[in-house]
């Protein structure tokens, strides 16, 4: 399983803090997003936002980054701390 977590506006839009995706269904970050988007039209729409950022195991990555079972994948909007 790939553990997926969401933050901030995306977490509220999706209505939950995270999900799990089978590693059989996704081998890249983009495929994880596509798999999650199959939940329903709202999820597909919110996850299609191209300003979303992604980290795998706490490292910022691009969509073609490979993922495997046991990875933690996070999707979130651009950061606004400080």
């Amino acid at each position, binding site marked *: *399983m790939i553990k997926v*977590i969401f*933050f*901030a*506006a995306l*977490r*509220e839009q999706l209505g*939950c*803090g*995270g*999900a*799990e*995706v*089978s590693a059989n*269904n996704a081998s890249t970050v983009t495929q994880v997003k596509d*798999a*999650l988007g*199959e*939940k329903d039209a709202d999820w597909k729409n919110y996850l299609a936002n191209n300003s979303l950022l992604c*980290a795998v195991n*706490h490292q910022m990555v691009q969509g073609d980054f490979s993922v495997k079972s046991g990875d933690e994948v*996070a999707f*979130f*909007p*651009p*950061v*606004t*701390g*400080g």
Partner: protein
Amino acid sequence: MKSLSFLLLPVVKLVKIDTTINKYAEISIQVEDFDHGFEVNLLENDNVEDGAVVTFSGRVRNNNLGLKVKGLFLEHYPDMTEKLLAEIIETAKQRWNIGRVKVIHRIGQLAIGEQIVFVGVTSKHRQDAFAANEFIMDFLKVKAPFWKKELTELGESWLAAKTSDKEKAQAWSK
């Protein structure tokens, strides 16, 4: 439809995490307020090698983009935040001759006037501490996974990242 298993995970817990990178650099992500004077004392205590102490603290102001602000909510990505802040501090240490570094960032619900962030840097001479402090703050703004939700007279909304913050951070690589 592919088989999907959706495990709904709870919202991140708000916990205090102290990360001491080494004796001279410390990161704290915390709900509680901090005491500015106490933090300055920690930077100065038993530190007679450094003549310069530069601190920055950020507070919740009562206005943004023409609207009255009533408060802020700060969310973060535990563990990744500490990792990125440690990387930013390490980069600053390689670039400038600095002594001690302390970064504090608060999370959770914050009222108008409350402190949000603290960056303290010491160095032998002022130039290194001034530059490193600004550098750490600039990269914290654009790299560290924190998100602000603002409560204004019009309701709640998540803040959008500013182009000016991105440009400010990029200017360091020129």
